[in-house]
């Protein structure tokens, strides 16, 4: 009898990990790339890699709850006759009726209005539910032009020309047949049940020179009243921001790769675009170089989850932020209370991202009338308002602790970074040093 040979412990490959192998099997079985909703799930340098320094002897703080700390922001001061006044600098990002149920859109409008901020339409036009419940509504002008018409354009409080988004910069929209209900089909002039892929480029302009003329047209149609936003995905923020300014934007929306989408290819979401953290400083630098910082407002989105993230984005130079995935979570998306139903869909609460399939047990990313009924727009709107208020209090808490009576006075000097990567991207010193990689060569104090 031969002596027993000790076995090595089974070793999984770091390269071919469980998820990677499961994707190979899925692709081999179906012949279709993986489509999902949401933003990048991989770990990238983010706001968690930054810390606020707080006040001490060299700075003195403001009294929490007692000394005033302003949060309001005005957007669209450059050209628009009627700029938007918001009580808080946290807006709701564009999400389409089609991707979301009518109840979910209404809930977003209600929540935003209670909290004193704006919400945004999406790639499917404006619904009466949404307009009716949104005190301030931004109307997206997208390549597909689904539902676009001058009446709704005039009903909007601002117009957002969407050039790209962080989840898929360079990509167009996608709404699969399961969600093209009668009402969605009618609003988009499409046959019911088809897989709808909307264009990645606008049909009637290419490049910044054309965009300038397109903006002129939109302003002329709306009598120069409404702020014009330009939304770009995070790719080349320094140059894209400069070109947006040149094209005549009042406001620039800059969306990093953690920003969500209703549906696109997984390979797109995870492998194209810049992390939000890497976008902000080049964008702000671009505005500063043009003498337009604070004159053209910058809204940053992509992975904003709490007041700390908001405070950090503002400190890096943003005028406001926008939330999408966090807003859906506040409405009730991915709630563990629905765990049993998520399991039936082959996933878990917190991981559910097959929004394109329209089987959302929370009733948010669906056009199924029975599922959609599960979301009470009044209650869900209240939850969103609560969340927005908590975030705002959190930003104020940090701003007061850093000695600021206005959250927009937060600045890069208030921050340090925990990693060299984050220090380089945010252009703030590595914690405990004065070293900003790429900016100065000093590793000392």
């Amino acid at each position, binding site marked *: 009898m031969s002596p027993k040979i000790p076995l090595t412990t089974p070793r999984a490959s770091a390269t071919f990990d469980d998820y990677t192998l499961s994707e190979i099997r899925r692709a081999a079985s*179906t*012949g*279709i790339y993986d489509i999902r909703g949401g933003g990048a799930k991989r770990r990238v340098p983010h706001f968690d890699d930054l810390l606020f320094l707080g006040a001490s002897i060299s700075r003195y703080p403001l009294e929490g709850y007692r000394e005033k700390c302003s949060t309001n922001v005005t957007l669209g001061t450059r050209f628009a006759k009627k700029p938007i006044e918001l009580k808080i600098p946290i807006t709701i990002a564009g999400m389409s009726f089609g991707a979301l149920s009518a109840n979910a859109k209404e809930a977003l409008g209600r929540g935003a209005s209670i909290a004193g901020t704006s919400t945004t339409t999406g790639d499917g036009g404006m619904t009466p539910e949404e307009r009716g419940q949104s005190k301030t509504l931004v109307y997206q002008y997208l390549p*597909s*032009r689904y539902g*676009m*018409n*001058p009446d709704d*354009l005039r009903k909007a409080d601002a117009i957002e020309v969407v050039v790209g988004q962080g989840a898929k910069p360079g990509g167009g929209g996608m709404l*699969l*047949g399961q969600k093209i209900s009668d009402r969605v089909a009618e609003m*988009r*002039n*499409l*046959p019911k*049940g*088809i*897989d709808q892929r909307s*264009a990645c480029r606008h*049909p*009637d*302009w290419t490049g910044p020179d*054309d965009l300038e*003329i*397109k903006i*002129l*047209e939109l302003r*002329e*149609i*709306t*009598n*120069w009243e409404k702020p014009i936003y330009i939304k770009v995905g995070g790719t080349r923020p320094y140059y894209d921001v400069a070109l947006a300014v040149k094209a005549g934007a009042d406001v620039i929306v800059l969306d990093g790769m953690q920003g969500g989408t209703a549906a696109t290819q997984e390979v797109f979401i995870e492998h194209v675009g810049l992390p939000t953290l890497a976008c902000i400083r080049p964008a702000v630098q671009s505005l500063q170089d043009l003498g337009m910082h604070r004159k053209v407002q910058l809204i940053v989105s992509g992975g904003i989850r709490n007041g700390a993230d908001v405070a950090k984005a503002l400190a890096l130079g943003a005028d406001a932020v926008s939330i999408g995935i966090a807003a859906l979570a506040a409405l009730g998306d991915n709630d563990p209370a629905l765990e049993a139903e998520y399991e039936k869909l082959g996933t878990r609460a917190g991981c559910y991202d097959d929004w394109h399939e329209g089987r959302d047990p929370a009733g948010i990313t669906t056009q199924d009338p029975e599922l959609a009924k599960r979301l009470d727009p009044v209650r869900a709107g209240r939850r969103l308002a609560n969340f927005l208020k908590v975030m705002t209090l959190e930003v104020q808490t940090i701003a007061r602790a850093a000695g600021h009576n206005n959250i927009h006075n937060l600045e890069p000097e208030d921050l340090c970074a925990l990693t060299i990567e984050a220090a380089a991207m945010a252009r703030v010193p590595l914690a405990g040093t004065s070293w900003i990689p790429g900016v100065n060569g000093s590793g000392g104090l």
Partner: protein
Amino acid sequence: MQQLIGDLMRTFDLAQSPLRELNEELHRQTDGSNEAHWEVLNPRGGHAIAVGIDAPIKVDVRGSVGYYCAGMNKKATVTVHGSAGPGVAENMMSGKVVIKGDASQYAGATGRGGLLVIEGNASSRCGISMKGIDIVVKGNIGHMSAFMAQSGHLVVLGDAGDALGDSIYEAKLFVRGKVKSLGADCIEKEMRPEHHEALAKLLAGAGITDAKASEFRRYGSARKLYNFNIDNADAY
């Protein structure tokens, strides 16, 4: 400078007054307007002329225009006595736009209703993403016309360039001349009596008397790309 000519016609000279004033005046017009006829002088290739009108008025532009003339038009009849730059009558909702000369790229893009008549030629991407508009071109049209066209009609008395109707949905295309090539999922279809009838109406609406519906061929969607199939991937 604006002057009253007769009871109804007003003349607006863009060499004298800015575009903003013109569009503002045109936006003031409503259904019952007694200023029902406008003449615009010296457009000089300017952009965004007569955009966003929402009244059944008549506007004659005496000369050539730049981008987006008559954009998002509702109810008005806008005639350009010259040529038009890119995106003429883009996203038109209703009414009628007539271009006496040629039109540049994206004529009638995303239009949702009304009639666009181009008496000369139209460049590439004519009727791109059209959503219900009717477009009649007396001359030829360029490549990628009716790209992703969703609904409405595109009538071409001359020839069509490459990739006509690429990724087309339910728009109907009628071409009298040659089609250089058809785009993905666009095929020739049978001209049935209802198509002859619809086409005859469109020709009449455009004031065309020297072309018969029977001289046209019809093109539309093969509907093979409506739902994704990996075996059609080479068509994308």
